[in-house]
C-alpha cells in the first residue's frame, strides 16, 4: 500500500498491466522518452521498450485509427490523446470504427482499446486544454465512457478498461492528477465499468457528480451538514456510459431531492440525461424540481476566468438549498 497521486496511480495500472499481459501496448505523442506531458506513462519506455511504448508522430486521427487496427490484430492498445481538446481529430475514428466494428462484423472483429485523455479546467492552461466534452463520447453507441475521481478508483478503473472487450474512452480529470494522495494497494484491483459509488451517505438530498467536480460537491455536502444540518448523499458516477441509473434512481426516490454537478456545458449535458431518466421513472417520488450546476454554454474561458466557468461552492450550495426549500 502506498500513498499515490492520480498520475502515479494510473502509471501503476499501466505498469502492472503491461507486465502481466504482453499484448498491452501504449501509444501517443510524447508518451515514451518524455513519459507523457502529465508523466502518466513515465518509465514505461525503459521497462518495455520502444516497440510496446510507441512515441508517435503528431497525428490524432492516425493514433485513434492505428489503435483500431492494433486491437483488431490481437493487441490491447492504450492510446493517449495529449488533451481531450485535441481528440476531435481522432473522434471520427472512434465514432465510425472503434464503436462500430463489433456490430458491423457481427462479432467477427472487436476493438478492445482504451483512449485515455486528460480533460477539464482548473490548471491554468491554454485554449483547447480545459474542455469537458465527455458527452461526445457518451452519446456514441458502442463506446464506454469512464471518468475516475480519485487515485485509487482511477487505477482500478483503468485496469478494468484495459481488460474490457469493448473500446473505452477514459477521461482523466487533470485538475486531480496531483491534487492529493490516496492509499492505493500494490496488489491488483479492479472496479466494474458502469457502476457508480456512494462517496458520502445521507438521506436528505441526493447530489450526483463525477471527476474533478466530485470534490467540490463533497465539500458542499460537508458545508450543508455543518451549516444546515442536512445530510446529503453524494453519488460518484465513475462511468457515464453505461450510466448507473439504478443507483441514482434509488437514492432520488429515498431523498426526493436531487442536485447534479458537472463542468461540462449545460445544454444536452450529462445532467440533462440524468434529469430525463428521473422524470421518466422517479417523478412521483420527487419532492422538488431537480437542479443542475454546470459549466456555462460558452466557450470555456481562458485561465484568468476559468474559475468563473466552473461550478463553485456558492453555486452548488445555492442550488442545494433551493432544492431543499422548494
Amino acid at each position, binding site marked *: 500500500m502506498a500513498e499515490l497521486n492520480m498520475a502515479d496511480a494510473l502509471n501503476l495500472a499501466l505498469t502492472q498491466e503491461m507486465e502481466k499481459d504482453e499484448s498491452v*501496448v501504449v501509444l501517443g505523442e510524447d508518451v515514451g522518452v518524455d513519459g507523457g506531458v502529465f508523466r502518466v506513462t513515465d518509465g514505461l519506455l525503459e521497462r518495455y521498450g520502444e*516497440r*510496446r511504448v*510507441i512515441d*508517435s*508522430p503528431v*497525428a490524432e*486521427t*492516425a493514433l*485513434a*485509427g*492505428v*489503435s*483500431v*487496427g*492494433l*486491437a*483488431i*490484430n*490481437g*493487441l490491447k*492498445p492504450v492510446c493517449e490523446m495529449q488533451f481531450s481538446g485535441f481528440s476531435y*481529430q481522432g473522434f*471520427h*475514428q472512434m465514432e*465510425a*470504427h472503434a464503436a462500430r*466494428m*463489433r*456490430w*458491423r*462484423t*457481427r*462479432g*467477427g*472483429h*472487436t476493438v478492445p482499446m482504451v483512449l485515455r485523455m486528460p480533460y477539464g479546467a482548473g490548471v491554468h492552461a491554454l485554449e483547447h486544454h480545459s474542455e469537458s466534452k465527455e458527452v461526445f463520447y457518451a452519446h456514441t*453507441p*458502442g463506446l*464506454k465512457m469512464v471518468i475516475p475521481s480519485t487515485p485509487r478508483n482511477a487505477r482500478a478503473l483503468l485496469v478494468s478498461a484495459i481488460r474490457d*472487450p*469493448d473500446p473505452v474512452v477514459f477521461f482523466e480529470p487533470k485538475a486531480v492528477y496531483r491534487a492529493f494522495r490516496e492509499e492505493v494497494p500494490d496488489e491488483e484491483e479492479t472496479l466494474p465499468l*458502469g457502476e457508480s459509488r456512494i462517496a458520502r451517505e445521507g438521506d436528505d438530498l441526493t447530489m450526483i457528480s463525477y471527476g474533478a467536480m466530485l470534490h467540490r460537491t463533497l465539500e458542499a455536502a460537508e458545508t450543508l451538514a455543518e451549516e444546515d444540518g442536512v445530510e446529503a448523499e453524494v453519488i460518484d458516477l465513475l462511468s457515464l456510459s*453505461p*450510466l448507473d*441509473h*439504478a443507483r441514482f434512481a434509488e437514492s432520488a426516490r429515498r431523498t426526493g431531492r436531487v442536485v447534479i454537478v458537472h463542468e461540462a456545458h449545460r445544454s444536452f449535458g450529462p445532467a440533462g440525461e440524468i434529469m430525463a431518466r428521473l422524470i421518466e421513472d422517479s417523478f412521483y417520488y420527487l419532492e422538488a424540481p431537480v437542479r443542475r450546476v454546470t459549466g456555462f454554454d460558452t466557450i470555456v474561458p481562458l485561465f484568468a476566468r476559468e474559475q468563473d466557468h466552473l461550478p463553485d461552492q456558492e453555486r452548488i450550495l445555492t442550488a442545494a438549498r433551493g432544492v431543499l426549500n422548494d
Partner: protein
Amino acid sequence: MPRKRVRLEHAVEYLSILDEKGRVDEKLEPKIGKETLLDIHRTMLFSRRLDERMLTLQRQGRIGTFAPAKGQEASQVAAMAALGDDDWFVPAFRETAAMLWRGFPPENLLLYNAGYSEGGAIGEGAHDLPISIPVASQIPHAVGIGYASGLRERDEVTITFFGDGATSEGDFHEALNFASVLKTPVIFLCQNNHWAISMPRGRQSESRTLAQKGLAYAIPSLQVDGNDVLAVYAAVQEAAQRARDGEGPTLIECVTYRLSVHTTADDPGKYRDEEEVEKWQAREPITRLQTYLKKKHWLSDKQIDKLEKEIEERLDEAWEKTHERIESLGDPQMIFDHVYADLPAYLESQRQSFADRLKEGE
C-alpha cells in the same frame, strides 16, 4: 547562409507489362501459374456479372445503393492473388472483386446490399476487414494491423484499398507518415479510377501522380497500369516481399477507370463525357486478360461461354439463397446484438420494450 537547393532524387516508375492489345513484355512478365491466372480471370468475370446483376436488382428496388467495381477488377483481383490467406485485407467500399477473391460468398454481398448487416459478418479468425464507407478512414487500420503483425512476429502483410479522392484526406497522409516512421509491413493500393463521384482526377490534386504523395513520406511508390493483371500482380508481389523483408510500406497507384456509376445513386451523364468512357472501355481489363490467356491457349471462347453460364447459375443460386436468408431474418431485435460484448442494462430495457411492441403488433 545563402539560399541553396535541397536536392531530392525522386522519380515515379510506371509499370505496364500487358498492353491493351494483349502484347506482353516478356522480361517483366511475372511467373503466375495457369491455374492461378484462370482463377483470377474467373473472379474478375464473376465480379463483373455480379455488378450487372446487382445493378438490375437495384433498379428493380430489390437491393439498395451500392458502388460497382466495373473496370477495376484487375487492380483488385491481381493484387489479392499476389498475397496469401494469412495476409490482411482492408477494403474501402468498391472492392467487390477483391472480396470475391478473398472468399466472401456472393449471397453475403447481396444480403448486405439488401440492407441486412448480417451480410457484413466476418468469420472468426478471418484476416479480412468489412466494407468501410467513410473515405480513407480504413487506411490507418491497416497500419495498426501491420504494426501488430510485426510486434507479434507474424509473417503477415496488410493491404489496404482506397481511391484517388482518398489521397486528399488527412487519414491517408497521417497513415502513410505513421507507417513510414514505424516501418510497418503495409501495401497502400490506390485505385486511381479518375473520378471521385463528380470530381475528375485533375481537380482532386495538382500532383502529377498520386504515387508521388508517398515519396514525400520516403515510401517507395510507383504507378502501374491498373487494368493490367500482370503489372498489378508484379507490383504487389514486389511490395509484399519488401514488407516481409522488414523494409516497410509501399504505395502503388493503379491507374484504372470507373466504367460505371460512382454508386447507383448518381448519374455520370451529368459530369462526364461518354467519349472518355469509350476510350477507357478499349483498355478494359477482362478482355485484355482473355486475349493474353487465349494466346497462351489456356482459354478458348467455348470455355468462356461455359464459364459465363456457370456464373449465371451461381448468381441465380446466390439470389435465391439471399431470399431465403432474408425470410429467416424476420426478427429485427438483432439490432441490439453486438453493440457491446454484453448488453448493458439500459439497452436491455430498450430491447425489452421494443420486443413488447413487436408482440403487441402481432
